[in-house]
């Protein structure tokens, strides 16, 4: 069922992709222009995706509810990291993501916190001090 659904989703995306390509026109440039290649890619993709809907190959074993929850929590932390990196500054945000992911993976809390603190500070030291890549120590949230 998952394969059929994914096939349908890919079919729709490929159809939209090939359809949109027709709008890309230029009055100058080469013979083919910007629209032909996407159409050449989109149409076989539609055909293959459709064949997966009609004759799905293989099955997918999705993880149980608890595991999906862990994945969602981890993903939420990663996204939070992307959003909070600048406001919080590098070391604090990185501390959070390392500790969080370690705990979700089943690490003992205290050890995870120690690893996160060491990891975040050494990465900051290596990149900001060592390689001259500016990473804010404290973000604007702290007036830094």
């Amino acid at each position, binding site marked *: 069922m998952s394969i059929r659904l994914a096939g349908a989703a890919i079919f729709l995306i*490929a159809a939209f992709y090939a359809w*949109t390509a027709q709008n890309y026109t230029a009055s100058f440039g080469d*013979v083919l222009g910007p629209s032909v290649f996407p159409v050449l*890619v989109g149409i076989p993709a539609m055909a293959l995706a459709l064949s997966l809907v009609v004759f799905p190959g*293989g099955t*997918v074993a999705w993880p149980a509810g608890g595991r999906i929850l862990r994945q969602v929590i981890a993903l939420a932390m990663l996204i939070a990291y992307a959003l909070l990196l600048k406001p919080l500054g590098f070391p604090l945000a990185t501390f959070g*993501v390392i500790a969080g992911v370690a705990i979700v993976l089943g690490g003992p809390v205290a050890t995870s916190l120690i*690893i996160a603190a060491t990891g975040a500070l050494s990465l900051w030291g290596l990149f900001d001090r060592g*390689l001259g890549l500016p*990473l804010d120590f404290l973000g604007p949230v702290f007036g830094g």
Partner: protein
Amino acid sequence: METLTLLGNGFSVAFQPLHLGLLLFGCFAGTLIGAMPGLGPVNGVAILIPLTFAFGFDATASLILLSAVYFGCMYGGRISSILLNIPGDEPAVMTTLDGYPMAQQGHAANALAISGVASFIGATVAIIGLTLFAPLLARAAIYFGPADYFALYVMAFATIGGLSGVDPRKTLLSALIGLMIATIGLDPGTGIPRYTGGSFHLYDGIDPIVALVGLFAISELLFLLERAIKDRDTAIRLTTWIPDVRVVVGTLWATLRGSVVGFVAGVLPGAGASLGAVMSYSIEKQVSNKNGTFGKGDPRGVAAPEAGNNAASAGALIPMLSLGVPGSGTTAVMLAMLISLNVQPGPLLFERQPDLVWGLVASLYMANVMLLILNLPLIGLFTRLMAIPTWALMPLVVAISFVGVFSISNSTFDLQVMIAFGVLGYVLRKMDITLVPLVLGLLLGADMENNLRRALSISGGDYGVLISSWISFGLYLATAGFLALSVWLAIRDKRRVAAAAADPID
């Protein structure tokens, strides 16, 4: 003779202190990455690429480092195969078949030594092959016109799934998804934005490096979270580190056979190290399994696949360097790095940047010797480091991936793109859709489109130009033959599975 002179120059490049240091570090780090279950050559190399940018290395230094890591992974993968019965990376799967039984019978030291020596011989045979054949292939590829390159790319996409028996539709679809992603951004020919949704962030297109780190590192984390939380399986303890030399010497023929088979598998498009190991093992089994000892701890069953996967990984560099079309996942990732550093692999690379090519080849000879030296006496150190639990390792890998990607552009938008690709990679892998064709499409899409448009500009819009030369015609013919073969294999496997399911004995 000319080759020897060039190789000599290559050694003088490789002996520069920075390159030597990187080589040593790469070999050590690679062995470790390979030995850790869950991290393999593809994710190891993908995570390291942004770091090489951050360190400001040039193309030669970066390529030397990444190749050392790549080769190191091939050595390291066997350690956990033998001691834990868990392959450290995919190509090491075959090594578990006889390696773990050997360790259980108390011959772990022998198994490790055999696999180390086999890795060395396999890689050396393949690097000699690389030295001899890559320049020849590059010389032939000079005659390729735009239409021929287009045909070559079509062949690369159609064949990258290899003869693995995986549903060929999924492999092709993966390549097409990659090509679709590659067209995002400003069209190089006309400057028209395509599929950007009006976002300026996407005008430059998706950075392949950002996508790669997401596809391989983040999706690996999601896979890890899916598995049960449990303590690391305990490794078999070694009573001695000193192997029995006679047993090691006894596997010499198996090693040599495995090396040749693996090398051929590596050069073929779309095969790579995993297939090299599988083919070497099955051929060795047919040749030597007279007493039914394979699978029960036969030393030759350790030697052949290890020689095979190392030979294949060096062989896979040949199409990557001389044609610009990688033969495996890891070489595809290395291609991404070269393209990001404005180095276009292909036939002209050998003429324009002999230092890079021959410096790399010379480094590979040296890496191999270093790896053998590192791996035999330091095996105890690697097994101890291997015991670092995943919950401690993986978060650090994630943080390093983040900081590496962030360092490329200083943009948190790239971090979001990376996470999105991680989810995409996870979902596709769950559906048995391999990511390698997608990566290849993402990398080569722009070049493929350019060659198509150039060919048709030359011909004035006549599509006949695509099959007008013998080279392109031959390539399409080979592609069609390959696809037919893989469809046939997939159908045969399906029948076999159905027959096994109907069989009440199992």
